[in-house]
């Protein structure tokens, strides 16, 4: 065991997978000598050379498309999109191509591709360096989507993503990179994709969340514990496929559900989580299913008071939890 930051866990996972499997390689903008703008690939070019740690031209559709081609013939590309916001130009390659290759070829061709991207706000990144983009992909069968909240899960799941036989989008909240540290086992381990994790056991209300918000929800739960309110916190970890069993179980446990995400509400991940619950556990509910999310605006502004107004925080979350507990 060692204490690692979130970003160290990412770098370690990449280095280990590249060491143990020659077909794994990294490509993206500035991933080489610069080691990535967040330095997630720092040190890799020195270890593995510039062919396996490839600085690509500035063209996301090509990054995705070239990676897809390589994956189809047996390589294991790990493409970095510099900011999740810049995944949009690659949307066609990801949705029309990667997600459909196995299906459209009737299982003849596969696309074992991992796309990593830092997402999320709270870093003065403004409209185009702060977005959550997971909801733009969760409707697309053929994709898997992971958004871990701890170094332990990040490492184990990035390794799982790379070894997975299907395309995986791996979203790393950039606020977590250096702010969150945690125990990471030494050596190789892999965690299962598709499993939500209970981060706190509780009996009064259930909070379902993921990413940075997990930490905020835990903080809020701690506050409420002092008031005698017991909060159950489920971290989705995998956004697609959602762990329906865990979601339904967590909802039934307390009968009161609050869904929290940084991303805006309409059509967000929370909508599907809510719909699952009201399909499977409606009569176990003692309160309306609540969602606490970012406001319905195109993206998060730059100016500090506006950024703050956009973002959820432990205080806002505590209020919503309290309101639900009192329902």
């Amino acid at each position, binding site marked *: 065991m060692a204490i690692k930051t979130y970003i160290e866990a990412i770098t370690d996972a990449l280095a280990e997978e590249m060491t143990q499997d020659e077909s794994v390689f990294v490509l993206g903008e500035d991933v080489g000598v610069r080691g990535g703008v967040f330095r997630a690939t720092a040190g890799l070019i020195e270890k593995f050379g510039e062919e396996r740690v490839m600085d690509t031209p500035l063209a996301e559709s090509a990054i995705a498309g*070239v990676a897809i081609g390589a994956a189809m013939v047996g390589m294991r590309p790990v493409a970095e999109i510099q900011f999740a916001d810049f995944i949009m130009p690659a949307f066609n390659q990801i949705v029309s191509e990667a997600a459909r290759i196995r299906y459209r070829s009737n299982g003849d061709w596969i696309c074992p591709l991992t796309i990593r991207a830092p997402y999320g706000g709270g870093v003065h990144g403004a409209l185009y360096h702060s977005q959550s983009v997971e909801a733009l992909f969760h409707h697309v069968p053929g994709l898997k989507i992971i958004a871990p909240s701890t170094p332990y899960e990040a490492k184990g799941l990035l390794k799982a993503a790379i070894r997975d036989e299907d395309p995986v989008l791996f979203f790393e909240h950039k606020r977590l990179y250096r702010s969150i540290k945690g125990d990471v086992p030494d050596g190789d381990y892999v965690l299962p994709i598709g499993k939500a994790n209970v981060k706190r056991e509780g009996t009064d209300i259930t909070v379902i969340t993921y990413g940075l918000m997990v930490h905020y929800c835990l903080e809020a739960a701690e506050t409420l514990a002092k008031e005698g309110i017991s909060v159950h916190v489920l971290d989705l970890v995998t956004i697609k496929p959602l762990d329906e069993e865990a979601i339904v179980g967590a909802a039934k446990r307390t009968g009161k559900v609050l869904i929290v995400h940084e991303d805006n509400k309409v059509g967000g991940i929370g909508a599907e989580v809510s719909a699952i619950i009201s399909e499977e556990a409606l009569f176990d509910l003692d309160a309306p299913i609540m969602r606490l999310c970012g406001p319905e605006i195109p993206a998060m502004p730059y100016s500090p008071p506006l950024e703050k107004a956009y973002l959820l925080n432990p205080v806002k979350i505590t209020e919503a939890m309290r309101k639900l507990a009192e329902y």
Partner: protein
Amino acid sequence: MSKHEQLGLNKDQLLEMYDYMLLARRLDERQWLLNRAGKVPFVISCQGQEAAQVGAAYALNREQDYACPYYRDLGVVLVFGQTPRDTMMAAFAKADDPNSGGRQMPGHFGGKKYRIVTGSSPVATQVPHAVGIALAAKMRREETVAFTSLGEGSTNQGDFHEACNFAGVHKLPVIFYVENNKYAISVPLNKQIAVENVADRAIGYGFPGVIVDGNDVLEVYRVFKEARERAAKGDGPTLIEAKTYRLVPHSSDDDDRSYRTREEVEEAKKNDPILKYREYLLQEGILTEELVQAYEERVMKEVNEATEAAENAPYPDPETVTRHVYAE
């Protein structure tokens, strides 16, 4: 020395190419008949582009190379090993369709055993895939060349540009093939691009752009042999533009009378690549009138048998509709 001798092609090879071209044409024509008879919902054609396709594919190494073709490339996929039965299974959307088990429209080629990469409908998406395959080959030190094709209209997609540039920067073994048939559905060349030759686009990517007469199968073969050699030697990509013409409507859903004159089409038919090649082979004494007849009969027999087999073959089981979304 005659043209084919210069190219080192022997009689069997010349006839094999003829065979592929004829087969592609007859399979295509049959699908139109079936469509007009209400038996298959959709056809998209290679007619007029058989020389451009067969000459290209024939110059590749079918044991090492990969093809990322586009929807017109029946000639290419036949050379890569697809059979008339395959074509007809796809036309009828039967379970035995090797491309997709009937999941995709005809013309959406694929088949790992043939080294044909699964393709989709959004045009030009296959171009970066070919570049990725070339990248993998380079990384693994394999002598594989990636071939990809598309229409001239489709070269206006961003993916074409991004892929060419990537391949140019990394000097990858890939051949970009533009089958310029002068129309993108109804839109004529001058409303698609503002230059005479699509091949000129290669200049912006740092590799050669070559123009070839797509009605001359041997010329196409020649430029492809060269391009493949360059790629295999590590000299990087080539963009090849074949000047060709689509002799039929865009697809069975199209009516080309709204955008081009019958005279124009009739004029183009005079350059029918199959007739041109047949003439050459007759002149060279490689084909005889009897042989022409014999090929015609054998090909028609194959087409008939394939049609019958496919017509009688089972559809995919509806239960399979949810399979192969993820690894099973």
